[in-house]
């Protein structure tokens, strides 16, 4: 255990030492970035066009299976990416442990909740239209 001597017993107990997953965070941030490199231009172009025809046009756009799948992928990659990004911002600037934990938890919950709401709304529109 060569690394153990660099951590105080308190750190070990609290589990606040090295999380040993920085590489995973780094890779996921970039994998989602690469996905968004393709999804965001599609989303921008597509959603602006779809929204010109009001409720009916937007519903019809979401109801197309390809659009529905791409929308869910866009939401998935975006919420994953922004959760990772906000995590770093919180870790960088919030020093107080209790506030930091609360915000990290809120960050995760908010991102997942919003993804669930967005994805289920897409599926509802898609399935209701029956295309």
């Amino acid at each position, binding site marked *: 255990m060569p690394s153990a001597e660099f951590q105080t017993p308190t750190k070990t107990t609290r589990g606040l030492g090295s999380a040993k997953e920085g590489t995973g965070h780094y890779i996921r941030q970039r994998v989602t970035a690469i996905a968004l490199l393709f999804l965001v231009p599609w989303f921008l172009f597509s959603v602006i066009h779809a929204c010109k025809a009001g409720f009916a046009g937007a519903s019809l756009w979401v109801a197309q299976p390809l659009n529905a799948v791409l929308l869910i992928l866009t939401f998935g990659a975006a919420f994953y990416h922004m959760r990772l990004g906000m995590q770093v911002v919180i870790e960088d600037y919030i*020093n107080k442990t209790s506030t930091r934990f609360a915000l990290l938890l809120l960050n995760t919950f908010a991102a997942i909740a919003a993804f669930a709401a967005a994805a289920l709304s897409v599926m509802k529109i898609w399935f209701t239209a029956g295309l």
Partner: protein
Amino acid sequence: MAGSEWTDKRPLSPHLQIWRWHATMAASIFHRVTGVGLYGGAFLITAWIVALGMGEGPYEFIEGLIFSLPGQILLYLWTMAVLFHFANGLRHLIWDGPGAGFDPKRASAVSVFNFAFAIFGAAAIWSAASFIGS
């Protein structure tokens, strides 16, 4: 000492006042600023798609907010934020992958380009959107 009130003694990331303003530093700061802005924007887009799923009434309410003056300004700022974060994010991927663009002159030039891309790109997108088809 109450466990939940324990404060990390390690230093925090340096804040804004530490830095001298220059193009690469501004691009780095704005990458984070736009990232945080887009975080908020994602929840507004979620509200939009949820309203679309709820039906015509809720959707028209959201549409009214989007077409109001504050809504339009917010949408325009959001577009600039997306474009900047997109271009600067691509630059990050190029830094990480091929490892190109690190020399100061090119790094500064790309930073300026990314700002210009955001400003003129947003203008191009919304003028195209209002002039082409309907």
